[in-house]
């Protein structure tokens, strides 16, 4: 492994060892995500499923957010690149999140607080 030589470089690209560790982490996080889904889906083990069910949505979103950040920071090099690129990406993500959240809130009102009868709908 060339970890030492790579880290000596000012604009250090992460070493291959780091890439592999990130890869393994991503795999494990995915396994946890699917595991959480299966536990809630099957309702087994019963006690754990009972605990997990009310928080499974935030848990899944947090797990995927961590995966997202790992790929962005390490595989896409944002951690070691200049701040400009991170700013471009993060700003876009913020607006993207605003759009998704706003749509969900606006339609939640329409569907649950003040729904109108629509043929074919609930």
């Amino acid at each position, binding site marked *: 492994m060339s970890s030492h030589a790579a880290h000596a470089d000012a604009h250090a690209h992460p070493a291959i060892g780091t890439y592999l560790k990130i890869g393994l982490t991503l795999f494990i996080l995915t396994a946890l995500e699917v595991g959480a889904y299966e536990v809630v889906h099957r309702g087994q083990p019963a006690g754990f499923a009972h605990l997990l069910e009310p928080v499974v949505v935030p848990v899944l979103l947090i797990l995927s957010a961590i995966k997202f950040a790992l790929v962005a920071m390490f595989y896409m090099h944002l951690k070691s690149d200049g701040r*400009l690129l991170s700013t471009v990406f993060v700003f876009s993500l913020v607006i993207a999140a*605003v759009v998704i959240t706003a749509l969900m809130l606006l*339609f939640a009102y329409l569907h649950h607080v003040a729904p109108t009868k629509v043929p074919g709908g609930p």
Partner: protein
Amino acid sequence: MATTVREAPPSHEPEPTGLWSWITTVDHKRIGILYGATAFFFFLLGGLEALIIRLQLAKPENTLVSAETYNQLFTMHGTTMIFLGVMPLSAMFFNYMIPLQIGARDVAFPRLNAFSYWVFLLGGLILNSGWLIHAAPNGGWFGYANLTSKQFSPGLNIDFWTVGLQVLGVASLAAAVNFFVTIINLRAKGMKMMYMPMFVWMSFITQMLLLLAFPVITVALILLMIDRTFGTHFYVPSGGGDPILWQHLFWIFGHPEVYILILPAFGIISEVLPVFSRKPLFGYAAMVFSGAFIAFLGFGVWSHHMFSTGMGPFADAFFSMATMLIAVPTGVKIFNWIGTIWGGQLQFKTPMLFALGFIAMFIMGGLSGVMHASPPADLQQTDTYFIVAHFHYVLFGGSIFGLTAGAYYWWPKMSGTMLDEKLGKVHFWLMLIGFNLTFFPMHFLGLNGMPRRVYTYAAENNFGFWNLIETVGSLILGLSFVVFLVNIWRTMKSKTPAPADPWNGATLEWSIPSPPQEFNFAEEPVVHGRDALWEAERLAGGRVPEPQRVSGKGIHMPNPSYWPAVAALGVATTLVGFIGGLHLPVSLTGVVILFLGVYRWAFEPAG
């Protein structure tokens, strides 16, 4: 995969002028002229559509055009003015002036620049091709669902609209990437972001808006296209779909879009006022931050276009407050413009007249805009001519006055000739009078209940008097453009030569010959502060001598190429295959052409 380069020709060799040189050009100045000429043509087309509308409305129960034709006219007038008029006219200035103002030789991606133009041209042609079969788009420029569904719009009209706009979207996105990177990366040595000309700043913010807003309308249009082509129910209630989704997606794009339409004009005004007041722009930093704040906030107000759709009190209140808030940074700008001219040595040349007209007209448009921000008030105003008055004051009184100021201001630089001042003043006064006659009475008509988008009205409504005044006003407006055309025609014949710096300008474009040589700057400039040319003149102790044309020996410029045009044809052909249902052979051919164009572009041999 880099742009190929070659040495610029010696200065005394005339630049090639044939059609082929224009088709293969990657020079930002030529591309700017292409945008300008094409956009001006479409602008006149949109103006003609407006005149026919005004003639139809001149008296009650008029029969000049049918209701169906009227629908096509107002749809195309709006769509044309926004997408084929104001936006590409702004693009003309982005293309021509941004590299000059930042001291660069060209944009970051010259072939991508050419690609953007050709895609724009094809998109504009597709959008207007419906006229040939009397099936021009007819669902309004905002295309509300589910009027635009296959059930209620079975003809090809809406297909021309969705396909044309998608093609135009590709052009805008490609150009936005290009200018975003150019402004960040290609600034001359010493030109920090906070030393950039205000036109460059406002254009920079505009590119960010384009990048974030256009994908949303792209999705909105794709879903509409899929509904119409494959029978899905994204916007169709009978299948569970909700037409409101269209409105949200459209306006999430649509509101940033209006800032895309006005910010470049803000930038132009911020260039013209200082030069013709012989004073630097007042409050530079505040202008930058207010522009950024307007753009950011602009993403949070879109549902003020939807106050009548029953979103509920919380949403109404939120969007209302956010909309009112936007008036604050806008007000900051207006005060700063006034602060710029205050105490200045005012030169009332034509560009300055249009800039001053802009301030007055934009304030009026802003005032009516703030009135719409209140949901209960807006419930009276929405879908009436009161709204039509508002947006014409900001879009015409704002954007068009601003772009016209830019046209007169930069004409000498782009053409090497001077427009006639007297005719310019006639143009201004006719335009100011005609504009106000046309649009001011719309405030009254709207409050008196005249609805939008109606092809006629009953005599008993008593709308006839003001409508007639407005029609007369619109004819005066049309006349003002005739004066402009006469001015251009006369100038092209007489060719009064323009010096490099006819206005005693503050920014770098005035430091090079008019028109500039292909490589722009003989030597790449080094900048020491804002208003780089005034700064350089201050350091030199006075005006700098008239720059000479020099040999371009040793300066490497990008090679011309026709592959961007080929790729553009590929994009257009792929999407045209969706008009009137999916015609797979057409779209697949388009994909092949696109791949061919892109691959040859990417692998063009260097040098």
